[in-house]
């Protein structure tokens, strides 16, 4: 076999992911696709070859769940899926609570049936378990096992049968050539291939391949230990690979699954054992395969004891031997999500890495859609390969976070849980002042941001009952009532916010306006000195981002967007710049720092600091201009995400501390409080019903559904316009609504507070599904201290979306009554927006 000299796309890696990407590219119409692997087929020696191959569909992440469900659909279609059922068992009451939360996620993402089961019921399903060790379980009948090697072969062969795919094994990539920022050719041991597009689907080797092109795929190879014991009489009559449900022993970070006549025991509990891709041996140097390392017993002894506790009748059987034991190598990323999409460093170079068996085919299809059509059906923003900031690509960061994250594989991870490792990476100029004020820091894009300030504790007394108290430990974890008190102080007087995590880009040049018009839904051709808030849409009219753009000059625009998604926005904008070089893009995130000042006293405070006109008439809403505060020239922008009078103040980072001191001093005279992101990101925005990207705004919802299709559609062309125009003509399948909880009292008499992602149900407990098959769930939840309520946002189908509708939310296994307050985007606090325009 000889390598074709050129290809439309070269996919590197014949694991589950590469096979799937290659097949789906051909299925969606591309021809001249080449699939390579350095190893032999069907098992080239990567992680697919030793995977445990089972799939539990329920995950708290919607994105992961959707990828998994799509994968299961494909595995079933290929005839390689065996449904076995699966039970996640709890040894503690705390874990039972987590299983109740998983029940909720299952309902939110539409995985049914699922049920909580008693120890006796678990015993009935899995007769070899010691049910006295557990307090209950979460049963998912649709759990199953796949033959991932066979699936890979089927997809590969389908691609080949179409005549559009050439497969070449035993061909190692030795270089990836980049010319003019674009991938040009793949150099292999069997010759070179000119390629328009290259996909790295090399699992644990991916970082090494990316480096060949000067790009980064920040993942680390890590050990997952597995042993195979058997044969046992329990499975003596087994006809297939698996006939009993798989058990995940969540509290010990382990699983046990039948494997033919034996039992496979795997663990994520041992110390994190991390490697570099360069540590992996060649096929011929390896004892087993390059991704099956020698077993290290000392890391597994505790796990053996725990498996023995749970399944003594098999694991404790002296006649059942340990047949096989390996340290299998798999991929871990610093944030636990896959790395999918075009790499920001090299045009045409795509990553399909850090993908496990359960997501493989779904990832393959989604990535192929993205490559061929510009976007995927499943919103992949959490997996976007462009999401990483520079510091997140550092090996020390990757090691630290994967090391910390490994033992959370089955962990009980609070939605607001903060990383402990590699903190204090990006510090705002206000950081020292904030520390003095007892700030409790949360991390955003590496920035340390105050979530609340302990020094504001006296405000609790000031606001008393209005603050709202929480009793359940889970509800108070990573939370403080001080957030609500800061909120009220802001509404009464003023709040000072550290917004340094904003990503800030300048677009300049004669082509700047055109470029921004192209990506922005709203009219960007505003007067100099105006601020425009606009969604960015995907080609099919879903949300790609939402952000503000300041026009600083005829040919100068400043884009301000959220830090978490900033790098992906940067890439999207860069990808849409005119080819003629008439617009330049610069990332100024590390040059400018932002201080927010809002509240009824904001103008008084600012006026006391500047001689510039900051009156309503002199500095109207949505205006921006440079003012002088003492010796500091500050770009002030009169907008608000907390729905109050005030400004974002942009200052060069090195002068930030000076600005803080001036504003702080002036603010004290007016009773201003330092306010954390707890107010900015949750309470302030929620009672104003402001949407957030990544929760309400996702690519699978439209502008009309989010009720943001105000005003007329601009004449200029923009990405997603055609779809947007169509959506405006159609009745929406769902509409974003605001609901409030009527009664927080649980059966045990404790007030409980949902925090997002819970299912919205009818009062009878039935799930609510729209005409596109999407379930209603809580996109965001939080306190609205000004109105004394707990607010939930959710998309609801039109027949349920009526003000006053009486519905329910399921939280931790119990249903709470809710009432629909607002259909669409009207705020529940200050509905006339008088504050912001005062």
């Amino acid at each position, binding site marked *: 076999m000889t390598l074709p000299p050129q290809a439309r796309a070269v996919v590197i890696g014949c694991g589950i992911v590469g096979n799937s990407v290659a097949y789906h590219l051909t299925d969606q119409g591309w021809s001249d696709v080449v699939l390579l692997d350095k*190893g*032999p*087929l*069907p098992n080239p020696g990567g992680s697919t070859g030793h995977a445990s191959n089972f799939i539990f569909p329920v995950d708290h992440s919607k994105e992961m769940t959707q990828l998994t469900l799509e994968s299961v659909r494909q595995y079933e279609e290929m005839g390689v899926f065996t449904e076995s059922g699966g039970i996640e068992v709890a040894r503690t009451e705390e874990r039972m609570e987590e299983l109740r939360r998983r029940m909720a996620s299952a309902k939110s993402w539409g995985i049914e049936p699922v049920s909580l089961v008693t120890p006796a019921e678990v015993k009935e399903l899995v007769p070899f378990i010691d049910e006295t060790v557990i307090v209950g379980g979460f049963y998912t009948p649709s759990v199953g096992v796949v033959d991932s090697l066979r699936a890979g072969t089927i997809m590969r062969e389908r691609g080949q049968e179409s005549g559009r795919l050439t497969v070449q094994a*035993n061909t190692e990539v030795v270089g990836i050539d980049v010319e003019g920022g674009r991938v040009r050719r793949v150099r292999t041991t069997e010759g070179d291939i000119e390629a328009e597009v290259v996909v790295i689907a090399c699992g644990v080797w991916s970082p090494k391949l990316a480096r060949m092109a000067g790009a980064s795929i920040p993942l680390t190879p890590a050990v997952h230990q597995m042993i195979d014991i058997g044969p046992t009489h329990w499975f003596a009559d087994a006809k297939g690979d698996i006939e009993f449900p798989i058990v995940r022993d969540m509290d010990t970070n382990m699983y046990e699954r039948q494997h033919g006549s034996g039992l496979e025991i795997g663990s994520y509990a041992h110390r994190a054992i991390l490697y570099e891709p360069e540590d992996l041996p060649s*096929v*011929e140097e390896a004892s087993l395969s390059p991704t099956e390392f020698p077993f290290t017993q000392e890391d597994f002894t505790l796990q053996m004891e725990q498996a023995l506790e749970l399944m003594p009748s098999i694991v404790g059987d002296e006649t059942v031997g340990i047949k096989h034991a390996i340290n299998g190598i798999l991929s871990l990323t610093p944030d636990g999500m896959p790395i999918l999409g075009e790499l920001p460093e090299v045009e045409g170079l795509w990553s399909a890495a850090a993908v496990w068996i359960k997501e493989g085919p779904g990832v393959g299809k989604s990535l192929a859609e993205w490559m061929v059509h510009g976007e995927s059906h499943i919103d992949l923003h959490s997996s976007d390969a462009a999401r990483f900031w520079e510091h997140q690509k550092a090996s020390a960061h990757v090691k630290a976070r994967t090391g910390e994250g490994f033992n959370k594989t089955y962990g009980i991870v609070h939605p607001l849980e903060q990383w402990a490792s590699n903190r204090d990476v990006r510090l705002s100029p206000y950081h020292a002042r904030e520390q003095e004020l007892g700030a409790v820091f949360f991390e955003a894009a590496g920035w340390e941001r105050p979530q609340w300030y302990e020094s504001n504790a006296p405000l609790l007394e000031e606001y008393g009952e209005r603050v709202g108290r929480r009793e359940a430990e889970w509800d108070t974890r990573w939370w403080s009532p001080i957030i609500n008190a800061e909120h009220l102080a802001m509404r009464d007087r003023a709040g000072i916010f550290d917004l340094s995590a904003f990503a800030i880009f300048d677009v300049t040049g004669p082509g700047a306006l055109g470029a921004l018009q192209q990506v922005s839904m709203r009219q960007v051709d505003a007067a100099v000195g105006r601020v425009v808030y606009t969604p960015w849409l995907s080609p099919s009219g879903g949300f790609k981002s939402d952000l503000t753009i300041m026009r600083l000059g005829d040919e100068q625009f400043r884009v301000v967007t959220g830090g978490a998604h900033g790098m992906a926005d940067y890439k999207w904008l860069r990808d849409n710049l005119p080819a003629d070089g008439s617009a330049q893009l610069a990332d100024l995130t590390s040059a400018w720092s932002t201080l927010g000042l809002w509240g009824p006293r904001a103008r008084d405070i600012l006026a006391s600091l500047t001689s510039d006109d900051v009156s309503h008439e002199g500095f109207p809403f949505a205006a921006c201009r440079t003012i002088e505060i003492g010796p500091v020239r500050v770009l002030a922008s009169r907008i608000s995400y907390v729905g109050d009078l005030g400004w974002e103040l942009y200052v060069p980072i090195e002068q930030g501390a000076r600005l803080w001191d001036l504003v702080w001093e002036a603010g004290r005279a007016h009773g201003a409080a330092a306010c954390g992101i707890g107010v900015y990101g949750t309470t302030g925005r929620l009672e104003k019903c402001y949407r957030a990207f990544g929760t309400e705004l996702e690519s699978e919802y439209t502008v009309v559904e989010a009720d943001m299709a105000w005003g007329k559609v601009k004449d200029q062309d923009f990405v997603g316009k055609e779809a947007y125009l169509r959506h405006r003509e159609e009745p929406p399948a769902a509409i974003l609504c605001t609901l409030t909880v009527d009664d927080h009292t649980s059966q045990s008499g404790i007030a409980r507070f949902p925090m997002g992602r819970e299912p919205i149900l009818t009062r009878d407990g039935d799930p609510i599904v729209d005409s596109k098959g999407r379930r209603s769930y809580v996109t965001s939840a939080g306190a609205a201290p000004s109105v004394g309520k707990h607010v939930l946002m959710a998309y609801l189908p039109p027949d349920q979306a009526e003000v006053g509708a009486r519905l329910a939310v399921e939280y931790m296994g119990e249903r709470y009554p809710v009432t629909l307050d607002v259909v669409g985007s009207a705020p529940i606090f200050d509905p006339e927006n008088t504050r912001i325009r005062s």
Partner: protein
Amino acid sequence: MPTLVYIEEPGDLAQQSLAFARGLGEPLHALTAGQRVEVTGVEHVHHAEGDAFASFAPAAIARAVVEVMGTHSPSAVVASGTPRGNEVLARVAAITDLPLAANCIASTPGDGASVTRTRWGGSLLEEARVHADTLLLTVQPHAVAAEDAAGAAAPVESFTPALRDEDLVVTVRERVGSSAGGVSLAEARVVVSCGRGAGSPEGFGIIEELAGLLGGAVGCSRAVTMAGWRPHTDQVGQTGTKIAPDIYIACGISGATQHMAGCKGAKAILAVNIDPEAPILASADYAVIGDLHEVVPAISAELRKAGTG
């Protein structure tokens, strides 16, 4: 000073030992025990006699070697690196407290003699220095050329070594069993073997069929015997049987060093493997790239068609 060679039985291996010993220095003396063995190309044959040598008696033979060492002060004592050659020389080494270099392929005699010896069943070589007045070594079988056995038999000097009681304990009392039925793996002209890729004990059906058609023996990898699919007597490898067939048909055998140590003696190797990069291909003469479950039955069918099966 002479070089003393222990000759267990005449044949190719003995001639290899003699050739190797000659390189260490002449004159050559041979030592035989029990049954008389005709040895050519040496100056003297020391033949140990006595009841103790009626059956193989390694301890007594070792004592005889030590006695000759005492009377003739050889600069080196050599034997074949066979199980018995190694055993006898190890006993000599234990009695004399001399170092022993087993399974050598080369040696330079002299003060601080150097040897090159095999490790890992021949997959690795060690260069070593021997710190001793008398060099004890055994010769790796089939690693050096044998010398011609033609010529006149050397004069034999019989002697009855002075044995101790303990030397009489370790002696073969009886021989039991016999190589039961079928073709012996070690002596088969054709060996067809398979690894774990057979999938199950039943998976060896197609291997047995092909071996049967060729009048050959069935072999297997160590993984297969450890899994209990085949008896250890079928295992080809460093710790199994070392084979020397005219052709070794290795199906789904990757070529781990431990396995290759057992099939080095094959005159030709045909590898049937799905992986064209499998290490065994570096040692094979012929290869078929493909799934053994498809290829092996096809070969059997072709043999039947050709009427040779």
